[in-house]
C-alpha cells in the first residue's frame, strides 16, 4: 500500500502511567507488521517524527487532569475524524479519580506538594467524554492486546468494533473457576465489572479489583455492596474498593456520599 493511501494515525497520551501505549508496543510479534499498515503522524513515546494536519484515527490514553491536558485533547479532537479512548484513564479517570467528590484538588495539592491549588493547573481527573465527543472506548488498566488488535483490524476493514456488556463472572464461569466470592468470601468485584480479561484474577485465585471499570448502565452497585456487607467487610473498606476504578461512576459516588453522610451523623451523635 502506498504511504499516501494508509490511514493517518496519531497515538497520544494525557495524564496516566503510559501503560496503554506500552501495551501497543508490547505486541512484539506483530508490532512492525501492524504499524506498517498506518501512516504514523504523531507518537511522542515511540518517535521523534511529528507532522501536523488531519488524522483518520487518534488513539488517546490518559485522563484529563490539567488544563494543558484539556487544551491538547481539544486540539486532537479538532484534527481527528475518529477519536478512540484507550484504557480506563481516558474513559473514567482510573485510579487518580478515586477521591473525586471526596477530596478537593486543593487538599490533594496540600498533602502531596505542600502548596496551594493554583500552583499547578490541575483539574479533577476525568475521562475524555466529559469534554469532547468520543467515538469508541476500549476499557482496561491496561487495555488487552487482543481487544485493541481486534478493534484496529476491524477499523482497517471499515467495521466498527463492538463493546462488551457482560460481567467478568461470565468468563469466570466459562473457565470453570471456583467463585472466589461465594466459596472463599473474597471481596470480588467481578459481578460489576466489564469482562474481556478472561477472568484473569480469579484464574490466579485472586478477587477482581475492577480494573476494567463497571459495566456501563448495567452494574448493580447496591447489590454488590449488600453481598460484601453480608460477607463481613465494613463499609469503609467496600467503598474504598469500589472507588479504585469507579471514582467517577455515578452509582459509586452516590452510595459513597450516603455512607459518609451516615458516618458523619453517627459521629455527631
Amino acid at each position, binding site marked *: 500500500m502506498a504511504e499516501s493511501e494508509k490511514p493517518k494515525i496519531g497515538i497520544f497520551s494525557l495524564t496516566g502511567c503510559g*501503560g496503554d501505549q506500552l501495551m501497543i508496543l508490547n505486541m512484539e510479534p506483530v508490532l512492525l507488521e501492524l504499524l506498517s499498515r498506518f501512516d504514523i503522524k504523531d507518537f511522542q513515546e515511540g518517535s521523534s517524527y511529528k507532522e501536523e494536519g488531519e488524522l483518520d484515527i487518534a488513539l488517546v490514553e490518559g485522563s484529563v487532569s490539567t488544563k494543558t491536558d484539556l487544551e491538547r485533547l481539544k486540539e486532537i479532537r479538532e484534527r481527528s475524524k475518529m477519536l478512540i479512548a484507550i484504557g480506563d484513564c481516558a474513559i473514567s479517570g482510573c485510579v487518580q479519580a478515586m*477521591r473525586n467528590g471526596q477530596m478537593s484538588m486543593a487538599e490533594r495539592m496540600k498533602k502531596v506538594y505542600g502548596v496551594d491549588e493554583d500552583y499547578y493547573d490541575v483539574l479533577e481527573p476525568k475521562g475524555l467524554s466529559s469534554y469532547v465527543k468520543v467515538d469508541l472506548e476500549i476499557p482496561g488498566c491496561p487495555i488487552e492486546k487482543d481487544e485493541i488488535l481486534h478493534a484496529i483490524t476491524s477499523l482497517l476493514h471499515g467495521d466498527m468494533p463492538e463493546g462488551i456488556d457482560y460481567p467478568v463472572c461470565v468468563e469466570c464461569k466459562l473457565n470453570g473457576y471456583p467463585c472466589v466470592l461465594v466459596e472463599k468470601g473474597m471481596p470480588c468485584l467481578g459481578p460489576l465489572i466489564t469482562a474481556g480479561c478472561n477472568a484473569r484474577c480469579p484464574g490466579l485465585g485472586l478477587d477482581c479489583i475492577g480494573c476494567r471499570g463497571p459495566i456501563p448502565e448495567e452494574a448493580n452497585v447496591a447489590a454488590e455492596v449488600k453481598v460484601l456487607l453480608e460477607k463481613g467487610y465494613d463499609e469503609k473498606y467496600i467503598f474504598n474498593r469500589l472507588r*479504585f476504578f469507579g471514582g467517577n461512576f455515578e452509582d459509586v459516588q452516590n452510595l459513597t456520599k450516603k455512607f459518609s453522610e451516615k458516618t458523619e451523623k453517627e459521629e455527631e451523635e
Partner: protein
Amino acid sequence: MKRVIEVEELTRVEGHGRIEVVIEGTEVKDVKMAIFEGPRFFEAFIESVHYEKVPDIMRRICAICTASHSLASIRTIENAFDVKVTEQTKILRDLLIHGEMIESHALHVFMLALPDFLGFPDAIRMASKYPKEVKAALQLKHAGNMVHNIVSGREVHGMNERVGGFSKVPSEKELKDIRTAMVATKPTAELAVKLFAEAEIPKYAESENTLMALDPGEKFGFMGDYVLVSDGTRHPVQDYLSLTNERTVKHSHAKFSSYKGSSYMVGALPRILLNKDKLEGTAAELYDEHKDLLTSKNTLMNNLAQAIELVHSVDRCIEDIDILLSNGLKDEGLVEVEPKASRGVGAVEAPRGILYHDYIFDENGCIVKANVITPTAQNAANMEKDYRVAAERMIKEPDEKLVEAFEIIARAYDPCISCSVHLTRIR
C-alpha cells in the same frame, strides 16, 4: 543578547517533559527541566486503603516499571509488619525484577536511545535499514515480558505477586519456556553492548557526578536494604529522606532531590560502577572489556551500562529458573500477615534507579501516610546540571545542535516522567 533554547516536548521518553535553557551573552543564565505530566496524587488518595491491595494501586504509578513499584510496595509493607517470606518467593521476585529490567532496557536501549546514534527518528523507521536488529530487539523485549506474564500475571499491572508470596506459583513448563526464550535471545543482549561500545557517544556533558545505588548483597542485583554512595558511605534505606532531600519547585510537577547540597545520579551507570565487583560471567567480561568507557563523568554511558545489565539479567533469569526447577516448585500459599500500627520503608532498583516507598499504617493495617520517591525525580537536578555543562561547552554552536544535545542527554537517563510526578514528605 538573550537566547532561549527550548525542547518543547521530549520525545522517545515516557511521559511529558520540556527543557528550557537561557543564555545571555557568553553565560548560561538558567536551566530548567520542566515536567508537565499531570500530577496524580497517589500518596493522597491511597490514605485509608487496606494494605493488602496497596501494591495493586501503587504499581499503577508507572507501566514500564510496574513490577518495581509493586515489589517496592510489597517490601515496604512486609518491613512494616515483620513478614518473612520463603526462599522460593525470594527467587521468584528476583526473577520478576530481572525480567522487568530486560523488558524496560530492551525498549529503551534499542527503540528509544539507539535511533539517535544511527540517525533515525524512531525504531520503526530504523527497521527499514536494520530489520534484523529491530526484530531481535523485539524478541528480547518479548522474553522480558514473558517473565511479567508468567510470574506476575500480565505484562503491565500484573497481580500475582502479593504481600507474603505469590498467589499462584508458575508451572515447570512455563518456567522452561522462559528459559528457552532467554537462551535464544542472549546474543541480542550482547549485541546491545557491542552497538553502544562502538557508537560515538558524545562527551559534551562530562563532569563530576555523585552516584547512588542499592547494595544488592553478595551478587549483582536490584533489591537491597542499604544505599551505596560514590563518596564511599553506606546508609540503611530507612535514612532515605536525608539522602534525597526533596524540594518542591514551581517549574516542575516533580520535586527535585539533592545530596549534601548537590545533585546526584541513580540508574544503570551508578549500579554498574558501585557494584562492578559483584558482576559475574559474560556481564563481568563485558564490563572488563569496556571499563575505560564506563566513567562516572559521562552520564551518557548509562546506555552502555543498561546494555551490560541486559546481559546480566538474561543470565540471571536462567540461573533463577535453574534453581527453582532443581529445588522443585512448591504450592506454598501466602505467609500469614499480622497488621499493626507501624511504619515501613522499602526500596528496589527500578530500571531507572532507586525507588523508595514509605508507609505509615494504623492498627488495622490501613495507610495513614505514604511517600514515594522515584528515580526520575532524583535524577532531574542532575539532568539540569548536565544541560548546563553541555550548554556552556557548546555556547558557540547553533540552537539546533544544543537542542539535539539536550534531547540525547535526557534520553540517556531513560526518564520515566509518569513516575516522577507525585511526591510528598512525611511530616
